[in-house]
C-alpha cells in the first residue's frame, strides 16, 4: 500500500514534467493484410533541428529524432550551424533569435550533435467497441498493447489479430497513447493498466478500421511481374522458334561434357559413379536443379551399364532421387539394372552425412564423383577425399562461398547459373534450351537496367530505386 502511494506521488510529480500529446491518428497501413493499424501521435512541443549554412540559409529541417546529417556538397559552405526550436517551419530570424545553437562534431562529410531528448516513454492502449461501451472514455475493454515505446518514436504498428479465424477482426478499434516517465516506461512490476489511465498523461481516444487489400500496389511489384512474365514469354517465344526448326546454339561447357566422360571412365574401370545432390531440402532450387540433372545422368549411366550411388542428406530428397533414378533406368531400357539400394539416405546431420559419404568413397572407390547442388562446409572435405581416392570430380553449385573449395579440389566446376543449364544441355531438348536463351535475353535487360540505374543515381535520381523496391513503405 505504501509502495503504491509512493508510486502515486512519483507519477503525480513526474506528470507535471511530461509533454502532453497533441493529437493521435489511427490509420490502416497501405498494402496491408488487414490485421494491422498504425497509431501515430504528435507532441505539443516537439523539437525540430534547423541546419543553417554560412550564407544564413536554412538548408534543411530535421525531425526530433535526428542527430546527424550527411553533407552532400561540402565545398559550397564551410561553416554550419544547427539550431533546436519547437517550430517545424520558422523564419530565419526566429531560428537565430529563439533557437538553441548546438555544438557540432565536424568531419568533412557528416555533421553530428547531441540533444538530450525527452525523458518520457509511451504506451499504447487499445479498446474494442462493443455493446454499450464505445470506448470514448475509461470504461470499456481497454488493454495495454505496447509499453516501453522509445522517447524518439512517434508511431507504433499494432497487430489487431494473430489469427482472424480464431480472433475475428472487428469493424473498428479505439486507441489511446499514454506518456510515462521513461524510468517507469518498461517497469513490469507495477499495476500498469490502472496507473497508466489514472496517473500517466493520456491522449484522447482515436478510432481506426483495418483495411485488407488484395493487391500490393508498389512499383517494384510491377517490375517483378515484368521480369516473370517477360521470362515466361521469351521461353514460349524461343520454344515456338525451336519447334519451327530453328537451331539453338549453346556454348560448350567443359564441365558438363566431362560428366559423360566421367561415366565412361567409371564403366571402363568397373567402378560406380557417386552423385551427391547437395545438403538442402527440396524447397531449394539448387536441389531441384540437381534432381533434374540426376534424371539425365542416371539415364546415361544406365545406357553405359554402369552403377550409380546417390548419397542424400534429406529423406524427402532421397525419395524423389529414387524415383528419378528408377525413371532414368526405365528410359534407357534397362529397368532390371536398377538397384533400389543405390539411392541412400545417410544422415540428416551435416557432418555425419559428410563422414558417411566419405566412407562410401573409401570403401567403394567410385571412379567419378559428381557434386551438384547446394553445399556448405562439407564441400572441401568431400572434394579432398575424392581427390585422395583419385576420382574424377565434377562439381556445380550456386553457393558462392563454396566455389573456391570446389575450384581448388575438383577437376571441373560449374559456377552459378551453369548448374541450372546442365539439364537442358544434357537433354538437348529444344524446349529446355529455349529457356536458357530466354534467361540470356533477360540478362541483357538487367544489364540495361543496371547501366541506366547507375547513370540515374549519379545524377541524384531515385527512380530506379523506387521501381525495384518491394518494401512496404
Amino acid at each position, binding site marked *: 500500500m505504501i509502495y503504491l502511494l509512493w508510486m502515486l506521488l512519483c507519477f503525480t510529480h513526474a506528470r507535471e514534467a511530461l509533454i502532453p500529446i497533441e493529437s493521435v491518428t489511427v490509420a490502416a497501413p497501405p498494402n496491408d493484410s488487414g490485421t494491422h493499424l498504425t497509431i501515430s501521435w504528435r507532441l505539443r512541443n516537439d523539437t525540430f533541428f534547423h541546419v543553417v549554412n554560412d550564407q544564413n540559409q536554412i538548408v534543411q529541417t530535421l525531425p526530433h529524432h535526428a542527430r546527424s546529417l550527411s553533407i552532400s556538397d561540402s565545398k559550397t559552405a564551410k561553416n554550419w550551424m544547427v539550431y533546436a526550436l519547437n517550430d517545424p517551419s520558422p523564419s530565419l530570424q526566429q531560428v537565430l533569435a529563439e533557437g538553441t545553437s548546438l555544438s557540432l562534431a565536424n568531419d568533412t562529410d557528416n555533421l553530428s550533435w547531441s540533444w538530450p531528448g525527452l525523458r518520457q516513454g509511451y504506451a499504447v492502449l487499445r479498446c474494442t467497441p462493443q455493446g454499450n461501451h464505445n470506448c470514448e472514455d475509461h470504461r470499456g475493454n481497454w488493454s*495495454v498493447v505496447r509499453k*516501453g515505446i522509445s522517447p524518439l518514436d512517434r508511431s507504433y504498428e499494432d*497487430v489487431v489479430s494473430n489469427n482472424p479465424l480464431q480472433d475475428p477482426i472487428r469493424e473498428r478499434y479505439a486507441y489511446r497513447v499514454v506518456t510515462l516517465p521513461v524510468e517507469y*516506461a518498461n517497469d513490469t512490476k507495477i499495476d500498469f493498466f490502472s496507473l497508466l489511465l489514472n496517473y500517466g498523461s493520456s491522449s484522447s481516444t482515436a478510432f481506426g478500421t483495418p483495411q485488407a487489400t488484395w493487391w500490393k500496389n508498389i512499383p517494384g511489384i510491377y517490375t517483378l511481374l515484368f521480369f516473370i512474365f517477360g521470362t515466361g514469354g521469351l521461353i514460349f517465344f524461343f520454344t515456338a522458334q525451336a519447334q519451327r526448326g530453328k537451331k539453338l546454339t549453346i556454348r560448350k561447357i567443359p564441365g558438363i561434357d566431362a560428366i559423360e566422360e566421367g561415366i565412361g571412365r567409371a564403366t571402363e574401370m568397373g567402378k560406380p559413379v557417386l552423385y551427391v545432390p547437395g545438403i538442402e531440402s527440396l524447397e531449394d532450387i539448387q536441389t531441384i536443379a540437381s534432381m533434374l540433372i540426376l534424371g539425365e545422368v542416371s539415364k546415361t549411366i544406365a545406357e553405359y551399364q554402369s552403377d550409380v550411388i546417390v548419397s542424400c542428406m534429406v529423406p524427402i530428397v532421397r525419395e524423389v532421387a529414387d524415383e528419378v533414378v528408377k525413371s532414368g533406368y526405365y528410359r534407357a531400357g534397362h529397368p532390371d539394372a536398377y538397384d533400389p539400394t543405390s539411392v541412400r539416405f545417410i544422415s540428416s546431420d*551435416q557432418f555425419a552425412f559428410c563422414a558417411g559419404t566419405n566412407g562410401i568413397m573409401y570403401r567403394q572407390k567410385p571412379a567419378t564423383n559428381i557434386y551438384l547442388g*547446394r553445399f556448405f562446409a562439407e564441400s572441401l572435405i568431400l572434394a579432398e577425399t575424392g581427390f585422395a581416392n583419385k576420382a574424377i570430380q565434377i562439381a556445380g553449385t550456386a553457393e558462392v562461398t563454396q566455389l573456391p573449395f570446389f575450384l581448388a579440389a575438383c577437376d571441373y566446376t560449374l559456377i552459378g547459373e551453369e548448374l541450372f543449364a546442365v539439364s537442358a544441355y544434357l537433354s538437348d531438348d529444344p524446349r529446355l534450351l529455349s529457356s536458357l536463351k530466354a534467361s540470356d535475353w533477360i540478362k541483357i535487360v538487367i544489364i540495361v537496367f543496371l547501366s541506366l540505374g547507375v547513370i540515374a543515381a549519379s545524377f541524384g535520381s531515385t527512380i530506379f530505386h523506387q521501381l525495384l523496391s518491394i*518494401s512496404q513503405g
Partner: protein
Amino acid sequence: MRQFLFSLQKLDRRIIFVGMALSIFIPLLLPFSLPFKVSKEVQATYDQIEALPKGAPVLISADFDPSSMPELWPFFQANLHHMFANDLKPVFVTLLPTAPPLIWPEIKKTASLYKKQYGEDYVFLGYKDGKELVIKNIGQNIPQQFPQDYRGTPIASLEMMQGIKQAKDFPMLIAISAGFPGINEYVLQIQGLYKLPMIGACTAVSGPDYIPFFKSKQLLGLSMGIPGSAKYERLVQSKENVQPFSATGAKSLNVLSLSHLYIIFLIVIGNFAYFMTRDMEDEDGPG
C-alpha cells in the same frame, strides 16, 4: 637436390597435416598474445548496442551448431554479457535444431550472473523448423509463429512479450549465423522490408557475402569469423560492469595467426620448388 625439389612439389599430405597440427597445438600449449586493432565493422557493432536505451528489447537469432561454435561462440558469449550488463532485454530464437542445447545453458548461466529473471528480462522462444518462412513470419506475427516459448509457456503470459507482436517492435535485430538460414535471409525478409536496425555475426567464409550489406548500411555492424568475435569480445571485456568471462576468441586468434603463416609458408615453398623445377624433367613422372 633436383629430386628433393620434385618431391617438395608432391609433398605427402600427411607431412602437411602434421605441420598444421603443430601450428595449432603450439599456440595452445605456449600461449602468446598478439596486439590487434578493432576493425570499424566490429566497433560499429559494439557502438550500436551501446546506443540502445536501458530496457530495450533486442531480437537475437542464434543460428549456429557445434561445428561453427569456435567462430561464433566467443561472439555469442560476449554478446550475452553485453546485453545483460547494459540492462537490455534479449529475446532469443533459433532456426537450427542443434542450437538450443548449446545456447540455452549459456543464456541461463549468464543471466544468473547478472541476476536477471526469465520472462521479465529475457526470453528464449526456442527452435522452429521452416528456415526462411520462419523468418518471414517473425517479421509479420511472432505470437503466431511462436505461441509458446522453449519451455512450453504461452508467450502471452510472459511479461516481457507483452506488446511484442512483430519484428518491428524491436529496436534492433542481431543475427548470429553459421550460413543458411542466416543473415542473408534476415536482410531479405526483415531488414529490407521493415528497415529494422540489424547487426550480423557470421563465419569467416561467409563474411565477404555480407560486406556489401554493411557498406549499404543494411547491416549496422558486422563481425566476421574468429577475428571479429575476438575483437568484439575485447571491447565487451573492457566495459566496467561486465562480469569476467574467458577470452576464447583471443586464444583462437593466436592459433589462426600461426596457421595462416604456416599455409603461406607452404605456398611459398611449393612455388619455390615449382619455379626451380619448371624446366627440368621429373625422373619419377608426374603425379
